[in-house]
């Protein structure tokens, strides 16, 4: 159950990254800004619930991973962000390093 909650938390995080894009193109900016805040808040609450049974480093690493990968994919396929191979390579390096740091800490 904790793992399921953690994955949902990652989904909300990816959604809030998508809202970062939506805010820029929306005419009524308060709607995506509100969704961004609610989604990110919900994501943090679910993350902390999952941490009651999954160790903190592991939970954070998986949560960040889903959020960054999900947010970047949504950006590329729905909001026309660059699909440059070098960009994907460097995002992977940053993500892998951040996950590694959480796991060794």
């Amino acid at each position, binding site marked *: 159950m904790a793992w399921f909650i953690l994955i949902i938390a990652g989904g909300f995080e990816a959604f809030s990254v998508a809202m970062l894009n939506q805010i820029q193109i929306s005419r009524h900016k308060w709607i995506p800004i509100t969704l961004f805040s609610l989604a990110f808040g919900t994501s943090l609450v679910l993350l902390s619930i999952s941490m009651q049974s999954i160790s903190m480093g592991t939970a954070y690493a998986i949560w960040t991973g889903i959020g960054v990968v999900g947010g970047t994919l949504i*950006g590329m396929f729905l909001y026309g962000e660059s699909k*440059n191979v070098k960009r994907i390579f460097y995002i*992977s390096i940053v993500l892998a390093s951040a996950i590694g*740091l959480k796991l*060794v800490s």
Partner: protein
Amino acid sequence: MNKNWLMVIVAAAFEIGWVIGLAHAYDFWTWFGTVIGIIISNYLLIKASGVLPAGTVYSVFVGIGTAGTVIIEILFFNEPFKISKILLIATLLYGVIGLKMVTDEEEKQGGNT
């Protein structure tokens, strides 16, 4: 270093602050500071995403936030120093600098962002 990249880095610095605040705040003013930190870091994140790709902004934000938290924990909260942490911070910086260079190249080409 242009203004938008600076905003992402400052946003990450505020994130480090509010993450520590969530763990250590104990009275009205420390909680007040934590909430202000959350608002400022998210505001800068939204601003920077107006110019740079949101996926790039968010990766750099998370990366620098994580590295900064690890460094602060070593310096002020008695977490152990490990070579592996320093190596990972180095690869992370390599990734961030690479991302900035790729983004600059694309902007010059008129970019498809």
